[in-house]
């Protein structure tokens, strides 16, 4: 029972977190980062 409640609570919190993040523009931030070459990732930065 405890596990079920924990699962449902975390599911709700995760969904809220995604919606909150998207609503304040994080999706655009993620996109902007990902479409530009990450210099640190390839060893130039």
């Amino acid at each position, binding site marked *: *029972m*405890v*596990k*079920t409640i*924990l*699962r*449902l609570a*975390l*599911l709700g*919190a*995760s*969904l*809220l*977190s*995604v*919606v*909150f*993040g*998207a609503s*304040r*523009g*994080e*999706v*655009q*931030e*993620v*996109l902007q*980062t*990902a*479409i530009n*070459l*990450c210099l*640190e*990732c*390839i*060893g*130039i*930065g």
Partner: protein
Amino acid sequence: MADLKRKVVQFASAIIFNSYVKGFAKGTIYRGNLKQICLPVLNCYSCPGAIGSCPIGSLQAVAAGITYQFSFYVAGFLALVGLVGGRMVCGWLCPFGLVQDLLYRVPSFKRSLPLWTRCFKYAVLVFLVLLLPVLAFDQFGLGAPTFCKWLCPAGTLEAALPLAMANEGIRGALGGLFYWRFSWLLLILLFCIIFKRAFCLILCPLGAVYSLFNRISLFSIRLDQKLCTRCGRCVAACHLRLPEVAGLNHPECIRCLKCVKQCPTGAMNWQIEVSDKKEENIYA
């Protein structure tokens, strides 16, 4: 058969997640809208073929920027994936996990890593992924993706090497950081020939996130005590001997399902369930 199925899924996901073929040919990266979405695996977004974002890279990039210190969008996404399958993603979908599985097939002497070494990856997650990109910044207030920069072997393998091979400009710009990263990659790959999934166990911050959900995820491995004969085949099938030393659904279980496949009586099985059932351990 279960392992063949897993290999097929691993290869398919690696190909799908990196299906922008033009990038490999031209030495560029995909710049389309799909990159708004995070992939559930450690797959560098600067890989020429990557069609989605790396969640660990995105977490750091958002934290290193000026606007936000933490990405709720990425964290919520990771929690959702973790809640569904726990570390199943590591075992079935991660391209770098596939690389490690293939390397372990190289004939050599084999050793097991002690389970306590898994603690390092939580330190990597907290310090290199969550804290340092926020706390260590330059004169412009910008941080750096510390894990991506210094420790991520997937970035070197999937992004730096293919880009350097196909793009002369990038090849010419590589310096000391690249040589460190390349040496680090070789060390990790060598380690993975001897120790199964060494990077997953010790260093992977994404594995650290998903491991937190292994005991509560909807997907779980179950044991029917009435059918179990304690033959020990499940223990022998697991490279960490988890059914014996740590119990089913341990944070380090990547859900490869070899234990389920090896069970001669069908006592061990997997299930997807929202409601609770008593957690069972083979030696409970």
